[in-house]
């Protein structure tokens, strides 16, 4: 009968433990953050005249976006879209083909150490830089135009696909690998019979996903001169042709939605 009486006393209180001990240090950290925030905000000199002027431009831009003009630069827009699509397809296929050997080489469970290190190095390099920076480099090397875009997207696709492929390979069921090796199969046959069937669904899914990403990125890399619809979009903005820019944005949105929708369909069918 002692237990109920203890509860009735309700002298035992509970509160969540502090994140940082001792408690005074926790309050010091919180106070420090608040002071820093105030100081940081006070250094931002906001020019209210420019904000107001910008607001006017923003209103104009939005109202122009709401009346997209598909006809004024019809030719440029369609050429840009076509170029973007070609860049996306070529880069995705190229990236896919190159990713397979690199992905296999980067899987520790099936490849010898020197090849593993080499392939991991390539992946690290391909993943270090953001698309725009890679695009700028390729524009410098091969000049303006879609070739720079294709190279950029292929390069970043390799980083993405090989890394995820290698990770998938490292986690496959090792038993079939052992069984196929025991038949006297060569290394290539081992890959074909024991590894590929196990990673294929994932590889196809990832490639379709990367196709989506490449389509979106193809619009971005165009802004730095690597061809595609991005170049057209950039020109439209430069000339304050917001109605054309609005049309281009709508087309990009529609394209991404179509690929999204078809990739879902393909994945359902295939896997």
């Amino acid at each position, binding site marked *: 009968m002692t237990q109920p009486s203890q509860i009735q006393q309700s002298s035992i209180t509970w509160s969540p433990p502090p994140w940082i001990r001792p408690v005074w240090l926790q309050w010091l950290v919180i106070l420090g953050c608040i002071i820093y925030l105030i100081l940081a905000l006070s250094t931002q000199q906001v020019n209210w005249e420019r904000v107001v002027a910008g607001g006017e431009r923003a209103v104009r831009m939005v109202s122009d976006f709401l009346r997209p003009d598909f006809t004024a630069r019809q030719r440029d827009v369609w050429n840009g879209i076509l170029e973007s699509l070609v860049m996306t397809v070529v880069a995705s296929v190229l990236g896919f083909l190159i990713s397979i050997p690199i992905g296999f080489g980067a899987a520790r469970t099936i490849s010898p150490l020197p090849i593993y290190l080499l392939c991991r190095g390539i992946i690290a390099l391909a993943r270090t830089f953001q698309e725009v920076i890679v695009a700028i480099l390729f524009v410098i090397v091969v000049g303006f135009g879609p070739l720079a875009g294709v190279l950029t997207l292929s390069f970043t696709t390799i980083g993405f696909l090989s890394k995820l492929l290698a990770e998938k390979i490292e986690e496959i069921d090792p038993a079939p690998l052992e069984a196929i*090796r*025991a*038949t006297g199969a060569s290394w290539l*046959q081992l890959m074909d019979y024991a590894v590929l069937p196990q990673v294929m669904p994932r590889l196809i899914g990832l490639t379709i996903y990367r196709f989506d990403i490449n389509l979106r990125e193809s619009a971005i890399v165009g802004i730095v001169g690597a061809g595609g619809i991005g170049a057209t979009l950039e020109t439209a903005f430069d000339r304050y042709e917001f109605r054309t820019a609005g049309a281009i944005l709508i087309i990009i949105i529609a394209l991404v939605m179509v690929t999204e929708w078809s990739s879902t369909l393909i994945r359902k069918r295939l896997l």
Partner: protein
Amino acid sequence: MLVVRKLTKRYTTGDLALKGIDLEVPRGQMMALIGPSGSGKSTFIRCINRLVEPTSGQILLDGTDIISLDPAALRQMRRRIGMIFQEYALVERLSVMENVLSGRLGYVNFWQSWLRRFPQSDITEAFRLLDRVGLSQFVDKRADALSGGQRQRVGIARALIQNPDLLLVDEPTASLDPKTSRQIMRLLTELAQERGLTVIVNIHDVPLAQLFAQRIVGLRLGEIVYDGPPDGLNSAMLTSIYGDEDWSTMPIVEHQHSGDAALVSSEMAR
């Protein structure tokens, strides 16, 4: 004839899994290898086809030392050694036919196997084997659509299509129910006898080993502690293999080979 001399295996972790195994298995013998988990059974049979690299010793298959073979010669040798696994180790997303034909990979070149264009003789043999193991109506089914017993039959067909001289069998029944286990073991024994194969079976199930094997080898901590006929296993032997336990509930089956003498002696014991 398989001859193993002073076979040792030390893993990189430092564990000594096999402590100098000496063993001779004559052609056509069905030998069961029993022993507790960690006794080195699995390591032992994987050393024979070098899925696990032995540390030292000799493994002679009809006079050829498997341990000294270079990679190309090892692949040639592996064609002569069929292997059957505990969890079947089929490639689940491939069809039954592809799984069976994968047993021929050591005999065809890469392009033939990539395009799935195996020689007609291989395909004929695959159909014959699938018929023999009772799976002729599952040829184009995917392996993951089969039951456990059916999968192990595919595993058996895959090993036999290699046309091996030696069959290594790792816990073939550990994932199967008692009835299917007996069916699989009977099928294995029959097929091995038909083809005159030497068989080494790792098996947990002692009564099953006694029922089907001609010889039993008991392994404990990487050493052979029993080597003899199936009916020579008594509770004292089981204790030396597996450790102290009450073995009275273990139904120790009288083997067919033990003949009348054993039957008489067990009659007299009553």
